[in-house]
Each structure stands twice: as C-alpha cells, then as structure tokens.
C-alpha cells in the first residue's frame, strides 16, 4: 500500500504545508482528539497508576517473551486454534496466501490490522490474484483512494468529508456532491454488508493475546471484525510477537487505557474475545516477528515493543499534526513509528528520528509509558554513528564542536560579528538560509554578555 517514495520527511512535510488552511484543519482535528483523551484520562483519578501498571506488565512480557509465546501457542492449540509462526513479512504473506489457496478462496475481507500494512499484505495478495477488501470504514476509504492509512487508529484522518464523498461517488455510486457523514456511512455499510455475506475468509488483527487462556481480543467500534470473522469459514488473525499479555485479568488494565488514550472513549463498542472456532470453521493465528526480536535485542529501544497501538502519541505530536501521517513514509507514522521504523531499515528511515523537536509530549500521553522522545534522541546518535547522516552536516558539526570547545576560538568568533554562529544557520541572513524563509534573524547586540561583564568587573575594580 505504501507509495514508493524517495522523499524524506522534511520534503514531504513542506509539501503538506503548502496548503496552510488544510494544515490548520488537520492540526485542529487531531488536537480535538487529544483534548478528548485528556478529558477521559482526567475522569480517572487512578490514571497514572494504570499507566504505570500497564508499563510494568508489558516489561514483564518483554522479559519473558518466549515463555509467554509458548504458553499462548499451547493454550490456543488446545482450544482448537491453528498457530503459525512467521519470521518476517514475506513468510507472513505466504502463510496467509497458502491458507486461502488450500481452500480455493480468491476473495477476503479484512479488519483492524496495521501489521498487514507493515507486511504489505494487500499488494502481495493482489499479485497472487486475491481480492482484499478492508472493512473498517476509514481503511476502506483509503483503500478506495489507493493510499496508505495516515494514522494507525484514524486511517483517513487526512481526508475531508467532501473528498470522501467524491471517492464514494466514484467507487460506490453515492450521489455526486454528497458529503453528509451519515449518508456516506450508510453507503459504505450497504456496500460492505454484501462483502461480509459473500466472503469465505476474514483476516483481522489482534489487540491482545492472552497467554493464560490462548484467546485473543479485538477492539472495534464498528463491529466489522466480528461480522467478518463470524460469517467466514476461515478466520486468520495476524499478530506481532509483542501483542501478548500474561493473564485475562490484565485486560482490566489495558482495555481501560487503550480507547481513552486513542479517542477519549471509555472503551470500544466491541471488545471481542476469540478463543475457539465455531463448528465447521477454522481460526488460524499467524504470529509474526518481522524485526521485533532484533528490536528486543537493542537494549535502548527494547521498550518500544510495549506499544499497544493507540495512536495517542500521534494526536499530541505537534510535528505529526502539522506534517500529516504520509510524510513519515512508513506504515506506522508519528513518534512511535519514528522509533520503530529505523529498526527495520536504518537508511530508509534515517530522517524520522529527526522529525521531532524532542518536546516529550508523546512520552507523557503514552499509556504504557514508552520513553519515546528519549529513544528519538538515542536513534539520532545511532544513525550518525552508523554513517547515515549527510557529510556536510558532519563537517559543520565538527567545526562547531571545535569552536565551542575553545574559549579563544569562541571569543574570536564572537568579536567578528557574532561569527561563532556561522555554523548555526539562524545567524546567516540570506535566502539560502532556511531560518530566514519565514523568520527574521536575531539582532546582534553591540557586545556579548562576556564582553559586558569584563568591563563591569573592570569598572568595579578601578
């Protein structure tokens, strides 16, 4: 699904910013979601304790991951679920295709899975002649528009209702110019109902897999995951290895946090538990690594695997709000995506840890307390050391480090028109300087503080 691109975040973000009213609309829409999250969180006096508890549970999971995975596999198998293991995206896609092929199925309905976005499953299956329909409304809209989701919870948040109306008019036959959300939703519902009734296979994601019981839980508002899974003869659930929780009772922590963080709702409309197949049907779980065990081995970045994919860090991130999800050119955008993506491809995603002011709001809203902004800082160090930083930047940084390490060089620079800052772009007043594009330079005073202080002391002493 992801559009092939060689452009990096600054360029894609600059393109997004050419339409300022649209940026304002995008920013305000997401801020509104952040505000709803705040209201929901403040209704629970135990909110911070819940976050801490969730964080501790996830630390426990990551420290004992292999044990919990084996426990989950054993219990799921006992329940009659068939468990598959996929080392990477390719294996995952092949397993899914193999299952469909065995049954001679050429059409599948899908719901609630960012993992399949990460694995580019839709593209793969299309090449194999399989028709996939995303059944979540937002996912369906971006699928019809032939775009990737721009947000993990609100996949079409970048689209205005009028644009959705145009897409529906073209693909689903709604009236031209119709943009009433109620009418558009009903159009999608009618279209999807036919899909649900005729698809023999359904693929869903997994929000939580319970090691103790071998069951898995999917959280949806539209109920489409249930509709797809219950009407199909084969239900395939794709999950990353980090989706585990030890016991069912832990859902009491995570279900309270997930949706409050995501949208400000107390809970999703449906929290569906799948533990065993209905008679005459099959449930398959594909457990996917795809780089996660490598991340688990990176001590400084390990705890990014605590993520429960609520999207709160995106809603609060001022850079995300003002640059749009597509500017991150990866399946999971925003702050969390920027610490996950370099693990998969450091060169391709070398720009993402720099697409942040390190403001830290992401870490504060994170329901499992991932230190996202600290990890962004740490990824920057790794990316530079691995040689994925522009050479010119390295040279400028070396010159700057040299100047700032020497009081003599520093003072010399200062005296010749604040030249010490010649390596810091905001001190150069010309059109090649990105600072000057929309901002005036700071006015250089006649003397620095150091120069003023030297005189002051002198005056006192004399």
């Amino acid at each position, binding site marked *: 699904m992801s559009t092939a691109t060689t452009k990096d975040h600054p360029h894609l973000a600059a393109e997004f910013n050419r339409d300022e009213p649209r940026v304002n609309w995008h*920013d305000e829409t997401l801020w509104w979601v952040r505000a709803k999250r705040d209201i929901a969180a403040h209704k629970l*006096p135990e909110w911070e304790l819940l976050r801490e508890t969730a964080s501790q549970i996830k630390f426990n999971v990551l420290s004992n991951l292999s044990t919990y995975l084996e426990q989950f596999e054993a219990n799921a198998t006992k329940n009659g679920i068939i468990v598959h293991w996929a080392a990477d995206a390719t294996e995952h896609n092949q397993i899914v295709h193999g299952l469909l092929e065995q049954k001679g199925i050429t059409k599948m309905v899908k719901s609630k899975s960012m993992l399949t976005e990460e694995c580019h499953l839709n593209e793969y299956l299309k090449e194999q002649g399989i028709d996939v329909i995303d059944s979540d409304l937002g996912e369906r809209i971006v699928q019809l528009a032939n775009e990737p989701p721009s947000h993990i919870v609100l996949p079409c948040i970048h689209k205005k209702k009028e644009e959705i109306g145009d897409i529906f008019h073209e693909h689903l036959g709604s009236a031209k110019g119709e943009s009433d959300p109620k009418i558009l939703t009903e159009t999608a519902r009618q279209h999807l109902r036919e899909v649900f009734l005729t698809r023999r296979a359904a693929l869903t994601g997994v929000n939580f897999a319970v090691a103790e019981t071998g069951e898995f839980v999917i959280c949806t508002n539209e109920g489409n995951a249930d509709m797809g899974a219950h009407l199909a003869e084969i239900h395939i659930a794709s999950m990353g290895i980090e989706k585990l929780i030890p016991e069912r009772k832990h859902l009491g922590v995570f279900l309270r946090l997930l949706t409050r963080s995501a949208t400000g709702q107390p809970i999703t409309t449906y929290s569906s538990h799948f533990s065993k197949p209905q008679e005459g049907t099959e449930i398959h779980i594909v457990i996917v690594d795809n780089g996660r065990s490598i991340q688990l081995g990176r001590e400084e970045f390990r705890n990014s695997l605590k993520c429960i994919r609520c999207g709160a860090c995106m809603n609060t991130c001022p850079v995300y709000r003002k640059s749009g999800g597509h500017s991150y050119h990866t399946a999971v955008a925003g702050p969390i995506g920027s610490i996950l993506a370099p693990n998969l491809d450091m060169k391709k995603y070398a720009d993402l840890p720099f697409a942040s002011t390190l403001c830290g709001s992401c870490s504060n809203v994170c329901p499992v307390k991932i230190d996202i902004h600290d990890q962004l*800082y740490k990824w920057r160090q790794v990316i530079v050391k691995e040689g994925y930083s522009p050479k010119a930047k390295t040279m400028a940084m070396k010159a700057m480090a040299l100047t*700032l390490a*020497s009081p003599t060089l520093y003072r010399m620079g200062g005296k010749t028109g604040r030249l010490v800052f010649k390596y810091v772009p905001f001190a150069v007043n010309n059109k090649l300087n990105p600072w000057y594009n929309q901002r005036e330079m700071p006015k250089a005073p006649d003397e620095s503080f150091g120069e003023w202080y030297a005189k002051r002391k002198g005056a006192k002493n004399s």
Partner: protein
Amino acid sequence: MRVALFVPCYVDQFYPKAAIATLELLEKLGCEVHYPKNQTCCGQPMANSGYEHLTGGCNNLFVDNFSGYDYVVCPSGSCTLHIKEHLHADGKEDQATEIRKKVYELTEFLVDILRVKQLSASFPYKVGLHHSCHGLRGLRIAQMSELVAEPFSKPAQLLDLVNGLELVPLSRQDDCCGFGGTFCVVEEAVSAKMGKDRVADHISHGAQYITSADLSCLMHLEGILRRQNSDVKVIHVAEILNNSL
C-alpha cells in the same frame, strides 16, 4: 552562597540583556554570583543532532569552568536539562556528577532554593507565558497538561509576584513552539508553522509580551513576530522579574 552563572552561548551572543538581568536579580537576592569567563556552550547543538560523541571538548571545558560552586544557575531550561542529563567527562566524572546535581534553571532555583516569596518588580503589561518543553517536561518546572496531576508552575508563581503583570490564558498551554535546535532549519516548514501557531495563540488572548524561561524558544517566536511586523515582543522571564526591583 557561591553561585556560578551559566550563560548559554546564544544568550551570551544575542541576548546579553537576559543574562545581565539574571546576574543582577541573583545578586539582589543575596547570592555571590561568579561568571566563569572561559565558558562557551553546553554541547546540546551537537548532541541533539546525533553528535553527542563530539561533545567531549565542551564537556571538559564545562567541568573545568563550573566545578566547586554551591550551585550553577542558568537562564535556560533547555541548556540546564542538557547538562543534567548528559554532562560526563573522562577522568573528571566525580566533578561532572557534582555539577549535574547542582545545576538549576533560574526559576526553579528562585522557587526551590531561594524560596522567593516576594519581589518588588513591576511590569504593567499583559503577558503570555510560553513553557519550553525541556523546562516543562524535562525539568518539570511546571505541571504538564498530559498528566493527571496537580497543576503548578514555578515561572507563573514568580510572575504572579510582579506588580501590574497580567498573565493571559492560552488555548494550548504547553504545545511546543517548534524551535527544536537544528530542527528549526532541517524541518523549516513544520518549525515555522508551529511557531506561527504559538504566536497566534498568545496574540489572540491579548498578550503584549511573550515570556519564557528559555530564550531559544523566544528567539524563534521573535523571528516570526518581527516578520509579521507585530507589536508583540518577547522578553526573558529574568528581565521581567528584575524590572525595577
């Protein structure tokens, strides 16, 4: 009380008035203030760009300049945080550790150490308080809007002591201004947009001045205000607290 004044490099070069106000304020409040004259920079510009490994020279120099004082005080939350989190020096790690414990941002020093309860400053204007993210979420000089916790604000507590000053409310109390060090040029489009939106929030609430405990944010916001030919000015919190004291 022997206090070393740590003046960030860009404050030294571009905003000496803020450093002068900090010095005078601390002296008036009874501190014996020293300005170690060979100081340059905390090393943050390199470190935040991914070049922390090049900051050895800065770190060494910092340790040499700032060892042996009761406190190190700095009119910048961001630079203070960098020292607190990242100051290490080969062969001088004990001194570095000592400094990391003793370094304070100005407003937290005034509130937590000097316990300032009254000031005779006056500043009869409507003022918007911009929280720098590093001061706020790093040093926690005020409560963060994301957390379910009691509100407080050390800079606001001090500004409340200033005669005639009216703090204006903001729609987004602690949204980032978009400076972000080299982010301001690498991600110019987003940085400028973030700054424009912060400025608009202050202006729409009637602020005549935007103040902050961090001049890096203010430098960015000032650049935008001046480009817009706005009458609204930026001023470091020390300059307000030191005004006609």
